[in-house]
């Protein structure tokens, strides 16, 4: 098994006709993901390499029944695209777009919640992953987003991360040590993500094929602290963590919109401490985090 995406995924892409949208959609299809359509207002009836394009999410849903949406449209159109896909009944929306205003994300999150969609509760309405995330990869099954699949093997490690490249770094070290992943979920680096660490940890806990979870966090907000509480109370599976940004100065946004230490809150040290206080082992470098994961799984570390 895996979480969120697998062979039953039917993917439809908002922004499929854009340069990046086309490139990554075709990459996902080449990987084996079942891409059933795309949505670009005004381009309904066209196709992208045989993938039918629709004017609206309602059209796409009635014609090709997607259960997963990928959002690849520019920031100013992204919030409405997410809400339109949800309103049309798509169960999972993966928003790759970076640069969506925080107030739009707040509106999206609270609209989904009001309309009975909950990121977090399986089986009820739409779940949003992202925005500003690399997407989801279930190795050997499906790839939705921009995660380079070649760095990961199929296996039993669940990965959840706020950062893309850091996930590749850690996942690749685990793969080199001979282990693979059930699913890699990028929840994104923005201040108001649709799904949090806790939401994804819950999925991994319930997934038979996931034996261990690697959580990769960074400065800003308190999602890691909330994850620590959740892990202590609800997780039977081991979790290994890595936190980036120990040397980040306060008040400076470090690349991601959500990666900022405000006053004395959101520091990497506080997050690592909160996790360790609940018995979660935290690697000081990505290599160390991967090595701990490998050790817990019973393998030999490949070292630095």
């Amino acid at each position, binding site marked *: 098994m895996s979480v969120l995406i697998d062979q039953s995924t039917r993917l439809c892409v908002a922004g499929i006709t854009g340069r990046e949208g086309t490139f990554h959609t075709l990459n996902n299809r080449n990987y084996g993901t079942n891409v059933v359509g795309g949505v670009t207002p005004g381009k309904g009836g066209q196709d992208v390499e045989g993938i039918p394009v629709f004017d609206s999410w309602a059209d796409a849903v009635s014609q090709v029944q997607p259960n997963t949406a990928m959002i690849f449209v520019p*920031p100013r159109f992204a919030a409405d695209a997410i809400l339109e896909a949800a309103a049309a009944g798509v169960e999972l929306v993966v928003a790759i777009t970076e640069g*969506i*205003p*925080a*107030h*739009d994300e*707040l*509106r999206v*999150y*609270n*609209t989904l919640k*009001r309309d009975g969609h909950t990121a977090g509760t399986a089986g009820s309405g739409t779940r949003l992953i992202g925005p500003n995330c*690399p997407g989801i990869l279930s190795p050997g099954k499906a790839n939705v987003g*921009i*995660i*380079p699949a*070649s*760095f990961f093997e199929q296996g039993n490690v669940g990965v959840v*991360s706020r*950062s*893309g*490249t*850091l*996930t*590749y*770094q850690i996942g*690749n070290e685990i793969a080199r040590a001979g282990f693979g992943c059930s699913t890699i979920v990028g929840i994104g*680096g923005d*201040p*108001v993500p649709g799904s949090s660490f806790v939401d994804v940890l819950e999925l991994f806990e319930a997934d038979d094929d996931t034996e261990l979870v690697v959580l*990769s966090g*960074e*400065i*800003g*907000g*308190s*999602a890691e602290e*909330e994850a620590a509480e959740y892990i202590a109370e609800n997780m039977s599976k081991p979790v290994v963590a890595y936190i*980036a*940004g*120990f*040397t*980040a*100065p306060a*008040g400076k*946004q*470090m*690349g*991601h*919109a*959500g*990666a900022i230490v405000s*006053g*004395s809150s959101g520091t*990497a040290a506080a997050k690592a401490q909160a996790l360790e206080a609940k018995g979660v082992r935290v690697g*000081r*470098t*990505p*290599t160390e985090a991967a090595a701990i994961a490998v050790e817990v799984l019973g393998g030999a570390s490949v070292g*630095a």
Partner: protein
Amino acid sequence: MDLLEYQGKQLFARHGLKVSQGLAVTTVGDALIAADEVGYPVVVKAQVLIGGRGKAGGVKLAANESEVREHAGNILGMDIKGHTVRTVWIEHASDIASEYYGSVLLDRSAKQPLVMFSVEGGVDIEEVAERTPEKLIRHHVDALAGLSHDEGVQIARLGGADDDVIDGVADALVALYEVWLEEDATLAEINPLIVTPEREVKALDSKVSLDDNALYRHPENQALSDKENEDPLERRAKEEGLQFVKLDGDIGILGNGAGLVMSTLDVVSHAGGAPANFLDAGGGSNAETIKQAVDLILANEAVKAVLVNIFAGITRCDEVALGLIAAFGEIKPSVPFVVRLDGTNDVEGRRLLGEAALPNVHSAKTMNEAAEMVVALAAGQSVGAVA
């Protein structure tokens, strides 16, 4: 983007929040003219994006011309914790009966707007929250409905505002919420929110942070922020569209992906080095971006060695290598480089770099090894494994 006090107050005024009349000036002469215009007594306030202005002597009351000349003269050019005062705000002095506190911010944990109010204003609000948490009212707002006047009244009552200003405080909170919402702010704070002897509720200070991602829908706000005190390298990076933060060390850092670059800073510090910057060249960065990035890093004279740490996903290592080769051709760096290329097309990238035989460029296999090498090089030691 953080706004200066007077810029925040101008936004406040636009949304109907009461503020004192004032003028922003950059010379003593203009300060005198401004004081005449707003009327004595005036307050001369340093405009810097750092707390503790008052304690540093950056806020002074002036009753007459000679006091304005003296205070404006002292404050203009003053250094407050590394920020040079270029602008002072001349404001008509307010009589104060009470000092309250009000703010609206984005609560990332609750994923809702949070309105905070206290009658203990004029002091560090984090201290109030710690010492007497019952005196800081925290009210989550339904993001889709907004803050109603009734809710404002409820917050003011709960916080213990004087009976005769409950409505005034509610109006101020609703206006502050409007600033937060309509200007795409992530924080809008008034400390102190004063009550005058005439029972008027006014914003005596402002702290506003705007969401950079939303600036496209606020062209009028794009020119704000503290341009003069912005680090020149950070300003240049912004103009070139690079994600760059200047730091205090001597090891230049170039990587792709915010998380990986943050992690690179940590690993370099862990190895005993001090990073000179954060620079995320971004996913899919091409040769041209890499060249620009190298140029920017080397514009910092403190840099003694540079670490290029790439784990390529969408980015291609051969593109990064070509960018480095082009950069070396034009810039001819005088400091050593350590390059770690991993991921998409890494073999090709390393081959290109090897063939180019760039002077003083060292290749590393892993992130940890790269960090140790660059720390040694910055300290003037030699390392093996020249590419």
